[in-house]
């Protein structure tokens, strides 16, 4: 039995149904909350923290926080915006995000969020410059974990949509990364038609379909046409 839940986002009254997360209710109401690890169709994970909001003054990830009657959610405040900028910057600086030569440029959600959040001077943090080898073993798919933001969308897509288990987290701390279910990608049962390696699944350029780089002209790419958060569905 679902019942209506009434609460506020930035002072605007929202009606959701019980059991929804803040993110789901906001999406339904047409209010965009920035996100990276969360994507429609997969269970929320709550790891990137970009969707952080304040609920009655306490920070929470809106993709996992359930709605409740009468809660006051802050989404577009300067404080929250600064948190999100810092988090997006952290992800930028953690990996090797060389936009000029990345196949995902223009359809990359990390890049698009940086634009949206107005990150103009990307030098706040040091660049960690990881040196993990690229896995190009598979005939159709390439994996460059130096670009990975640990969002786990490929992992969940493989498990929940493809009913496989091609990807999984390995390591911990700053060395936590996406591993594959075998010696390398070629030794897994991944297939080019898997949802886990579909274009919209990896938000950045970590999973690349071979022979499909730079297919849209600059100016015609996904986020050139519609900056992130300006259309109902971004991915």
């Amino acid at each position, binding site marked *: 039995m679902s019942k209506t839940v009434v609460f506020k986002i930035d002072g605007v009254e929202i009606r959701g149904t019980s059991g929804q997360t803040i993110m789901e209710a906001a999406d339904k109401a047409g209010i965009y909350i920035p996100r990276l690890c969360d994507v429609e169709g997969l269970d929320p994970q709550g*790891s990137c923290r970009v969707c952080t909001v304040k609920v009655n003054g306490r920070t929470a990830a809106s993709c996992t926080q359930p709605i409740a009657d009468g809660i006051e959610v802050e989404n577009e405040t300067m404080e929250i915006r600064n*948190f999100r900028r810092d988090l997006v910057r952290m992800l930028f600086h953690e990996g090797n995000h060389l936009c000029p030569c990345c196949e995902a440029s223009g359809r990359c959600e990390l890049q698009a969020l940086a634009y949206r959040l107005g990150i103009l001077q990307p030098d706040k943090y040091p660049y960690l410059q990881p040196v993990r080898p690229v896995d190009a073993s598979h005939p159709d798919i390439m994996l460059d974990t130096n670009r990975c933001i*640990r969002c786990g969308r490929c992992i969940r897509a493989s498990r929940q949509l493809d009913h496989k288990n091609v990807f999984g987290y390995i390591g911990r701390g*700053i060395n936590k990364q996406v*591993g594959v279910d075998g010696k390398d990608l070629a030794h897994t049962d991944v297939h080019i038609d898997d949802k886990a390696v579909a274009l919209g699944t990896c938000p950045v350029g970590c999973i690349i379909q071979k022979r499909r780089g730079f297919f849209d002209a600059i100016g015609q790419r996904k986020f050139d046409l519609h900056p992130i958060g300006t259309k109902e569905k971004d991915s």
Partner: protein
Amino acid sequence: MNITTVVKQACSKFGNDRGRLIDILWEVQNNLGCIDEQAMNAIAAEVKVHRVEIEGVVSFYSFFSEKRKGKIIIRLCDDVIDINAGIEQVATVFSEELGIGIGQTSADGNFSLEYTACIGMSDQAPAALVNNVVITNITPASAKEITRTLKDTLDPSKLVTKVGDGNNAHTLVSAMVRNNIRKQGEVLLADGIPADAGLGNALKKTSPEVIQEIADSGLRGRGGAGFPTGEKFKLAQRTEADQRYVICNADEGEPGTFKDRVLLTERPSLIFEGMTIAAYAIGSTSGIMYLRAEYAYLRPFLESVLENRRQAGLLGKDICGKKGFCFDIRIQMGAGAYICGEESALISSCEGLRGEPKNRPPFPVERGYLSKPTIVNNVETFCCVARILDRGSNWFAGIGTKASRGTKLLSVCGDCARPGVYEVPYGLEVAELLDMVGAEDPAIVQVGGASGEMVGRSSFGRKICFSDVATGGAVMIFNSHRNVLAIVDHFLKFFADESCGYCTPCRVGIVFLRERMQKVMHGFAESADLDYLRDLSKTIMMTSRCGLGSSAPKAILNSMDQFPLVYSSHLREAKDGVQAGFNIQKALDESRRIAKRTSMIYDPVYGEKNE
């Protein structure tokens, strides 16, 4: 034995249950010396999961290794107290005597040498684990002797020449560890605590009455967070379920804490009694004690205590003759991960998963171990539960302060004459404690371990209780010769090592904090860097997913507030806009070596226009 046989036996020992993966991995590693690719493939086939999941778990825990390690693994404790006590000098001796560096394995495959986080022996530092054998108070001289014995016998148990006091001398423990009980309070460390009196009283009451008794006592969790215990029991009991679980958190990982070690050694029955009362209160038939890998030396002893309780009808079916009350406890070993002290991460680990915290809500009291309502409490809390049921809530509530009832075990270590365990009533002033322990010229007191609070001299009047300086039990004392920046940097290194990596701010932010902290330490920082540290700390604390991230920056913020002059004396405003942290000579070293020539610009002999 070949790998397949070992794996098959290990898996079948635990019913090919994926949920018992940590036990399976221990079994395999103990037999093979590692869990390599082949072993992982074999385990994956046996328990019917994908290999990447096995690899995910193996690579998460620092005591598991994909690479073959030596038959004898020497793990040197590198918490800040052990460093101050000279573990680095000891490490040098081990390194020289064994001919291997830190992180290496000797060519004959006999020895591995590595550093590990706090092993809970800070009162007898420097300390190390040699396989499961604890070695304390190591000196460079004794390190030499230790290596000689190990080389001669290849048997770590030969290192124990003199056993410690109390149950450390028990045949099933026989460890050189000393309890160092310095002050016995009336709740936990008092002599002559009647066995199972609390359980007897509990079984005369109804479950709600037991919970009410605990709630009335005002008992709050002893692990650090201080959640009201009665409330927790009530929430778990109220959640509809066909099974509920009682978990004892014996993953004492907070650097500088060792009071649970003493309880596990001297009060194991009281702990299990408390767990049994909790099981009765919430309606559970199954309990787990999550024991950190560093305390593996206590496991045979604890298992024997459990067995004795089963024999005595204190565990198992119809406990104490109470029809229908069945409860048993298994011991789950950890595998080296501080984060598993966090209750939901601990539950993940018990389920055979990577020890990552779970999303909350739902909270463990609603959906915990195997998705059933679960209470997770600290070792000390369960002891208090048993004592409260024995002596009554009024007795307990009469000790301590209004908001912090009862006594607290403090593990005191560092620069003091009498390091060890003190049972004191809540409300004790830091200064009183310092007197009690014979602190020598104390300048900094870190209460609550790395994630706790840094108390400087001007605040020694503060009280140890939930409303002032809260603590899970660790008290580290530093004298005025210690470098506060080095202490903070060490804590940051600890958090960076122990972050599970799940969420962005904790995984990445702490690495950035440490980078800038090092810049401060090396005198390359400017005042803007301090603003940066504050700003970054705030983001990490506000956006992290669990307590590890939200408490990691505390040491920086505390120390900046308490010791602003130390920070400002390290700052250097760079002239000419040059970044002090960039070292052109270092950047050119490799090139000089490869090109076999010197710099035209930066080497004075050849250049004219030196900078």
